[in-house]
């Protein structure tokens, strides 16, 4: 049988094409590969499931051996968040015209250019910044690149990084900034916020995250911006855009570069597959020059009233200059940018504000509810979406909760659990978590 994905595997057409080429067999095309490099056996792979129904059965068997967050009550966050994904987001990003396109010109792919331009434009409004990139891979990469941009811009090679960021993100930053950029950790105070540190003009930047890894909203952004600027350094702020309907955007307190992950804006959790990163600055040419990413902009066409698009300042990218360009650019996460644009268009300014208010209120409600049976850390700080609790054993608590159908949170260490609450968690869900924890705490000495 001819495989359904390979039209020219059909023997008749294959023979016709070989004849047209004047080749005896496909072996002729491989004449340039030396015999000792040729694999002299078939690949050792599982038997194929060519019939679609067989493949579906096999895949359903595998995918069925999971218990998703929709089958349990999940309070897992820590970088991947269970926000509601509007149906329209899925509708748009599953459109074949977007899903299967790649890198056409601004003509045949006009729609991609406009949709991504609108995405960066809506992000620009949320961030109050004029320049936003076509998405990079994720928030980790966005932070790494934002810090490298600051280093190139200032000509310095040392950065002060808040210790209140996820361990995995720090791991990425260490790898990505090595070997030429020194990372100095900035300690976290008892209030869960970055303690204003010693700082001098050897630093390129301060990296602040808000809400930070404990869900704490940092309140001293302006002070840190002034501190950085006084030494000729930049303030780089990692912020989840979903918080910005209620929280001040980093630019409002003096940040020079904002960055973060957009998974919250319309992407499913997808076992970590929904990530994309944004980087934003003001329209300051020397800083714009340090973006490695593509930037899309408006250009006129022959016809009045028509928007054309193209690459802004392409002559800084690795596409243009290989190793002489800024870092590198390539396939990253454009479709998630389009999706986040759809999300922001659906929400509008007031939807973003209402969502933020709901999350703030439910987070505080959950903190108060859990505080009745466990120690909630940084209770006086403003929290958005996440908070940490201290328990005698993270694993023991989470195991017991899992037995009761609850994914209670992410263990940050043996005694600290991070709990995530979004608009998808009802008050009843939060009450149930609190009640189960209270019951476990009452019956378990280890807790």
């Amino acid at each position, binding site marked *: 049988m001819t495989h359904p*994905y*390979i039209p*020219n595997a059909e023997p008749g057409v294959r023979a*016709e094409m*070989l004849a047209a080429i004047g*080749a005896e067999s*496909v072996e002729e095309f491989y004449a*340039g590969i030396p015999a000792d*490099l040729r694999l002299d056996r078939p690949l*050792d*792979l*599982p038997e194929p499931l060519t019939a679609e129904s067989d493949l579906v059965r096999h895949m359903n068997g595998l995918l069925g051996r*999971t218990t*998703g*967050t929709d*089958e*349990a009550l999940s309070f*897992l966050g820590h970088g991947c968040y269970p926000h509601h994904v*509007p149906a*329209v987001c899925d509708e*748009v990003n599953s459109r*074949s*015209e977007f899903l*299967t396109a*790649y890198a*056409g010109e601004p*003509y045949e792919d006009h*729609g991609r250019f*406009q949709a991504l*331009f609108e995405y960066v434009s*809506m992000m620009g*409004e*949320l961030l109050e910044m*004029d320049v936003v990139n076509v998405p990079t891979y994720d928030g980790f990469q966005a932070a790494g690149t934002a810090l490298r941009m600051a280093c190139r811009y200032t000509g310095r090679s040392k950065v002060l990084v808040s210790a209140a960021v996820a361990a995995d993100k720090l791991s990425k930053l260490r790898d*990505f900034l090595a070997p030429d950029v020194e990372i100095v950790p900035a300690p976290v105070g008892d209030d869960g916020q970055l303690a204003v540190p010693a700082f001098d003009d050897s630093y390129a930047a301060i990296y602040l995250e808000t809400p930070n890894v404990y869900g704490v909203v940092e309140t001293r952004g302006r002070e840190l911006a002034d501190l950085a600027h006084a030494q000729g350094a930049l303030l780089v702020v990692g912020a989840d855009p979903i918080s910005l309907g209620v929280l*001040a955007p980093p630019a409002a307190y003096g940040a020079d570069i904002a960055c973060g992950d957009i998974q919250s804006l319309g992407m499913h*959790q997808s*076992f*970590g597959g929904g*990530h994309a990163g944004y980087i934003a600055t003001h329209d300051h040419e020397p800083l*714009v020059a340090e973006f490695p990413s593509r930037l899309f*902009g*408006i250009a006129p*066409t022959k*016809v009045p*009233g*028509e*928007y054309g698009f*193209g690459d802004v300042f392409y002559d800084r990218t690795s596409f*243009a200059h290989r*190793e002489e*360009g800024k870092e590198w650019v390539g*396939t990253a996460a454009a*479709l998630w940018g389009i999706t986040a644009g759809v999300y922001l268009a*659906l*929400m*509008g300014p007031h939807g973003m504000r209402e969502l933020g208010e709901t999350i703030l209120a*439910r987070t505080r409600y959950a903190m108060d509810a859990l505080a009745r049976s466990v120690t909630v850390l940084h209770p006086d700080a403003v929290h958005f979406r996440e908070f940490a609790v201290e328990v005698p054993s993270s694993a023991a608590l989470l195991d017991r909760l*899992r037995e009761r159908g609850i994914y209670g949170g992410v263990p940050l260490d043996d005694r600290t659990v991070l709990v995530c609450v979004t608009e998808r968690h*009802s008050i009843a869900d939060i009450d149930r978590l609190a009640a189960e924890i209270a019951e476990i705490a009452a019956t378990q000495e280890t807790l």
Partner: protein
Amino acid sequence: MNTAEPFAELPVAPKPPLRRFHQARWDEPMIFELSRPGRRGVAVPEPGAPRVELPESVRRAEPPKLPELAQPHVVRHYLRLSQENLGNDLNIDVGQGTCTMKYSPKVNDRFAAAVAELHPLQHEDTVQGVLEIYWRMERMLAEISGMSRVSLQPASGSAAIYANIAMIRAYHAARGETHRDQVITTIFSHPSNAACAKVAGFEVITLMPDADGLPDIEALRAAVGPRTAALMITNPEDTGIFNPRIREFVDLVHEAGGLACYDQANANGILGITRARDAGFDLCHFNLHKTFSTPHSCGGPAAGACGVSADLAPFLPGPVVVFDGSAYRLETPERSIGKVRPFLGVTQNIVRAYAWIMSLGAEGLRQVAETAALNNNYLMRKIIAIPGASAPWGTRRIEQARYSWQELAEETGVHSEEIGVRAADFGVHYWTSHHPYLVPEPFTLEPTESYSMEDLDEYAAILAHVADEARRDPEMVKGAPYNQSVHKIDPSPLDDPKAWAPTWRAYVRKHLS
């Protein structure tokens, strides 16, 4: 009885030789221009709990100036934009050479959707099925490449290249060989090989082609030495030519104490034919969105896979999936470079790529490779028969070819970019080449296994028509496009800091205020 129109004759006349294509043209405004205060696209739940008053230091002062639209109009706007985009499903997508544009099976999208509600930090016991997919996928890619272990964490091909160079750096550092500060690549390898090596702190040496279009082995001999950290090379290169002396390249680098790293972006024509490890490579990477069919998604999310030999396995990004005979667990390798991306990988694409291989098996993968080579060689005969088109360095190619319109450009003054734009008027796309344009007036075609002979005939006929038009009416070609969503663009404001508008707010500030 209706009065017959003058054209009321059956049978309907045959189709003309070229498709009378016109892209959707909705003349769609910017989404901000569709806004009316008070409208909303989606509602959010009330708090149901006391409101939190924010201190002024963190409270947003002004609402963001996002557009306000009702849901039907958000849908309509984005669906119009989607129609103004030429997806792979809709066209003979052979013009994006090096990118391996192939059919992405629809059934695999369903499997991808099935992981939507899995959180990456769920307890391992609750995600055994998806960990098994990671494990099985790793084993299959290890077999396809000959490597020992494979990380599926990188988000894309370039991210995988970076992960490989980070492992190379860690490997040499672990052996106390930090003096190895040079990476050698070739001009016809993807620019990210050079760019990633530079970011990782290496000096980059780029080999240029010899008279046969292959990287110059004498230049390699001159370049290798005690400072060599690695060779990072594509094969076949973006020319479509397989380097028959690749083993010698690898040996030269090994003799100097360096590592050999294989960019397998162009693996589609050699699946089951030849393997990275069998040529001596220490590391390699695949682009799952190219060779293994996951959709290109307008430029990601994609997925990359890094394969390494046993010596490099301790340096892999963590965690990796391990299987103890009864359960799948996550484990961070002993000397891991750490994280290159959040969590385990772009899972929905790992799932799609796994399903694609499972549909094909060993024989199917070989059929993919052979058909990609067959299609390329067939199309090549058709393209070089077009007056004004040529392929440098003879006709020995695997799965793609870089062509030149130099002769046509000299004759007509019409450039390759302009030919491509005019070809789009007939419903296809092509891409020129990475920079620098070593092949003058370049275009790069890669007809993967997804295209029929009829498709290739149609594509070649379009290029032949446009080349002919360039001779008859060069201004017509230069004025293109005509049948697209928009007309010819003047890109000059995009490079002028005073005029450029990377967002709507910048546009409003600079041009409408």
